[in-house]
């Protein structure tokens, strides 16, 4: 087995498990799989402005705060499903790796829209890529940085949840 192939397996596992944790809103478990200096960003290239935009930029504490404060905000009710495909893995050092994954984010409506008419319907919310960095800590690959590069720039009313 090549070194890259050997690396892919644990990273794929980490990325897919993280997607499931976010889908199921097990935010504490997701945070447990991130490094202490975790940084999370959502970015997109604006074809209107012809420049990059940053929609969200938080450190680990900032992301934790977003999760903790969710009950105090009105959130558009939907079940989220992240379809993630690992595309590339590149070792950056003995204990650091970067990866790129394609992301399709579907949501199935609960109370978003007319619950009677629209409830239960599934829609593509956004597509883009995860640009991740991992660091090996005590034998575990922890997510140290995630930049979500969205292609989708029409996000409806937006969301208090993160892709």
């Amino acid at each position, binding site marked *: 087995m090549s070194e890259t192939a050997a690396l892919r397996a644990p990273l794929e596992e980490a990325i897919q498990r993280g997607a499931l944790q976010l889908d199921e809103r097990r935010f504490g478990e997701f945070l447990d799989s991130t490094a202490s200096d975790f940084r999370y960003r959502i970015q997109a290239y604006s074809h209107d402005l012809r420049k990059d*935009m*940053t929609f969200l930029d938080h450190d680990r504490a900032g992301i934790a705060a977003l999760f903790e*404060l969710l009950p*105090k*905000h009105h*959130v558009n009710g939907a079940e989220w499903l992240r379809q993630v495909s690992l595309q590339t893995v590149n070792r950056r050092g003995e204990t650091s790796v970067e990866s790129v994954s394609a992301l399709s984010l579907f949501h199935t409506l609960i109370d978003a829209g007319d619950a009677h008419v629209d409830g239960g319907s599934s829609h593509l919310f956004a597509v883009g890529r995860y640009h991740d960095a991992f660091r090996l800590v005590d034998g575990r690959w922890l997510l140290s940085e995630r930049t979500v590069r969205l292609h989708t720039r029409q996000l409806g009313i*937006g969301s208090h949840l993160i892709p």
Partner: protein
Amino acid sequence: MTLDSTLAWRQRLGGAKLPFVDSRIYTDPQIFQEEREKIWRRSWLLVLHESELAEALDFRTLSVADEPLIVVRGDDGKVRAFLNVCPHRGALLLREPAGNLQKANPSGSPRRISCMFHAWQFDSRGKCLSIPRRNAGYQTRLECEDVRLHEVACEVAYGGFVWVHLGENPAPLAEHMGSAFEALRPHLEAEPLEVFHHHKAIVRTNYKLWHETNSEFYHDYMHHFNRVTGMQQPGYYDRRYETFPNAHVTVSSMEVRYTAYEHDEHALANSRDLSFPGLERNGWKLLDLFPGATLNLRGSALRVDTMTPLSHDRVLIEFRGLGLKRDTAEERERRVRDHNTIWGPFGRNLPEDLLGVTGQGLALRTGSEGLHMLHGRIEDATIHDETGLRHYYEEWSRRLGRLASAPYGDESGPRAKEPARLPVFRGGVLAQ
């Protein structure tokens, strides 16, 4: 449903003492068509910021009241607007949302607006430069000099924003604005601004309901963020509305206490110290412009909302964030973060505002029964007063020749429209 509840539903809350509008102004497709002709095609509209056209030959495309437009900075530096329509056979000229004319397209030369269909070419000032095989086809019957792009009134003013007006020979923009911009002028005209954020949303609601959301603060009850950083802080209830001719409205400032929002790491790090020239730290001023734009200056970021109504129940809203053109990279990063933490598509406030107005769109549907929508809070023009709403509909009623509270006038008149029928009950039993 009982007879009592039916009657109560039909009656105005508060009787004749409380101002209201008839909700059918949001749900009637005919009224929307009239709005497009009498308001949107006859008003100065803020469409973008000059920083989006930073270089000569930069262009943006957009649509206003169903008219496709090009806004381009000419080779002479002047910003102009044209219909994005080839005068030859009506093809769309430019398809990209933004670009620079230096780049040639497959049908044309650099520095020109070229129609992909038959390769007619125009310069950045709208002048026709080339009609392929003109002599062979048109002989002396048509010269390039006979052809121009259709220019639309356009001005750059009030903080470097670009404004267009679809009408012919409209009164100057300054006449439309009056003195409404004066409260923001010291902060937005001291030095050049720059757009750093743009996103858009198509929302299932009537456009006026979004403008109303931007014109009243009573709905701060919806926002945990605004409650703790605003409503519960000193100065909130001292903020005042001021109304101006042509239905513009301003709201005076207060200091937003960002540190009150739990876990706001940026506030806790006391980093929200960027502002705009002359604006107190974490100050908050707002300007609502008829018929549908808002400049919201809060702390380190200026948010600008513009709307393109698509139908009576659908609106495209564009959200821009601006800082100072001279920002360092570090300053810009902080402004972007401050802006998007609250107002980005994943921010704390914007999804809630859009959720609220979407709910109105879902509740007030095409052909639904008219509801008396209260605009009746009178609190000496302070922050929960609804004077902004009332002021808007005075102008709206004047423009449309319909009262917002009685849009169909005398039921026996020429604009008579059968009011939505309510079920008739007799003795608690449905009679018909």
